[in-house]
């Protein structure tokens, strides 16, 4: 009995340590992903190793086909890896986790549900009580400026507004890790910048761990603590560089000479 208690206390202390940032929340080591195309094998990812600390904002950039989305989908538990390790909160990733919130290139809203019901989708899927989350869902929609549209349908919103609904859906159940797969790349430049600012504001408040896939270097520099630069064929993580820009970052960051220097530095890596 006594020893059992002791073990539990030690385990909890370990968790607290992890929570304090001692252990990375995402650990990827020697990761490999192959796709079989008939007789041929396509190497999508080769020998990728990456650790992401709790509360960190990391972006993955690289040309199309570099495997950045593949890496994200493996961390999300959506596709299996071919070799190597991939861990989330010290546990091997074997499938999707409720600790993760995701966003995709398109909003992927269900058009037959109101915006509020779309935000509440994870609650229904997880079998939680709608009543407990409905106020939170409304507050989140309010937070991103969609208060007047809660009872409207997605097809009454612009593309940027729809992505904001998707942000709320991702945040509703308070996941530890946000995985965002080119979430703003289908939007026009003005809308994208606006949503970058929204995301920065939300991240500043909540300090979630974010893995953000993009092919836009400026966007990656603006948002990230670190940027993983990837190469194509085979998909490799070439370099992970720190972005030393002061936080909180705002619209002013976008005209800061330091920002341009960082963008130029990342751009230089692609030759």
């Amino acid at each position: 009995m006594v020893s059992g208690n002791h073990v539990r206390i030690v385990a909890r202390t370990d968790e607290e340590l992890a929570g304090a940032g001692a252990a990375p929340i995402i650990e990827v080591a020697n990761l490999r992903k192959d796709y079989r195309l008939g007789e041929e094998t396509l190497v999508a990812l080769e020998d990728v190793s990456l650790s992401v600390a709790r509360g960190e904002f990391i972006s993955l950039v690289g040309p199309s086909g570099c495997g950045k989305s593949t890496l994200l989908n493996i961390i999300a538990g959506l596709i299996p890896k071919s070799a190597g390790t991939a861990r989330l909160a010290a546990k091997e990733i074997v499938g999707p986790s409720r600790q993760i919130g995701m966003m995709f290139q398109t909003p992927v809203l269900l058009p037959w549900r109101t915006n509020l019901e779309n935000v509440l989708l994870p609650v229904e899927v997880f079998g939680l009580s709608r009543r407990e989350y409905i106020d939170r869902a409304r507050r989140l929609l309010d937070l991103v400026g969609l208060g007047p549209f809660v009872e409207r349908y997605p097809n009454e919103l612009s593309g940027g507004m729809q992505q904001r609904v998707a942000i709320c859906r991702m945040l509703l159940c308070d996941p530890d890790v946000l995985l965002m797969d080119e979430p703003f790349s289908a939007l026009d430049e003005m809308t994208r910048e606006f949503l970058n600012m929204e995301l920065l504001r939300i991240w500043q408040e909540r300090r979630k761990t974010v893995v953000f896939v993009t092919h836009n270097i400026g966007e990656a520099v603006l948002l990230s603590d670190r940027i993983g630069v990837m190469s194509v064929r085979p998909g490799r993580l070439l370099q992970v560089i720190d972005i030393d820009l002061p936080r909180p970052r705002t619209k002013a960051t976008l005209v800061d000479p330091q920002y341009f220097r960082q963008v130029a530095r990342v751009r230089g890596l692609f030759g």
Partner: protein
Amino acid sequence: MTGRISLRRRVSDHAIALAIIAGGVVVWEMVCRFGLVSALVLPAPSAVIKEFVGICNEILHGGPLRNDTLVTLYESVAGFVLAFFLAFIGGTLIAEIPLLRRVMMPYLVAINAAPKIALAPLIVVWFGFGTGSKIVMAALIAFFPLLINVVSGLANADPQKLKLMHSLAASPWMTFTKVKLPDALPAVFAGMKIAIVFAVVGAVVGEFVGAEAGLGLVIKRTDYQLDVALTFAVVALLSLMGILLFYAVEWSERHVLFWTTPKN
């Protein structure tokens, strides 16, 4: 502005269509008036219209034709509903169980290609001269377009939405009820619009083979009596029934699939 232009265009489109139809009717009337074709072969439109007004009157005032109309309507709708439930259950099983889909699909395509109308005499032998055999006949013809649309609707659910549900670790049941089923509805309704018209055909074919009542039986009788104008009028009545049933399905489609018409 654009709304008014498109409305004006719609009106003019209808006007052109009506003019073409009216022209055809005038030619047809001339052909009959000048005795180019015997009235026993092709009655004049005016005669058909007179008969049509007559049978509409009879239906409204409770004559024997009212019963025949209601019998055919009942057989068509009951057959359609029966086919819908069978196709929905069967289609769901086929779409959701990969093994069943792989094994059954080639046979379904083969059965679909078979002329099911040719089974009508057999169906009447099996299910009798009453409404039962007509309901089975209507269901048999309506079943396949429904089945195929249920299967393709469920199988072609938006992969992005499925990925979202996967990322939420949703159970197969959750994914089915929250995404696949509503995503399949447009295809299901497309099948229903075909099937409802097919169901009327099935009921009438069944009545041709042998029936106690129904508009198919009326057509057979008027045909024997060489009352061709009346036959035409009953065919027009059947068309009207098909059109009304079609629009009933379309009306419910508009209300169920409210999200497919953008409001923005």
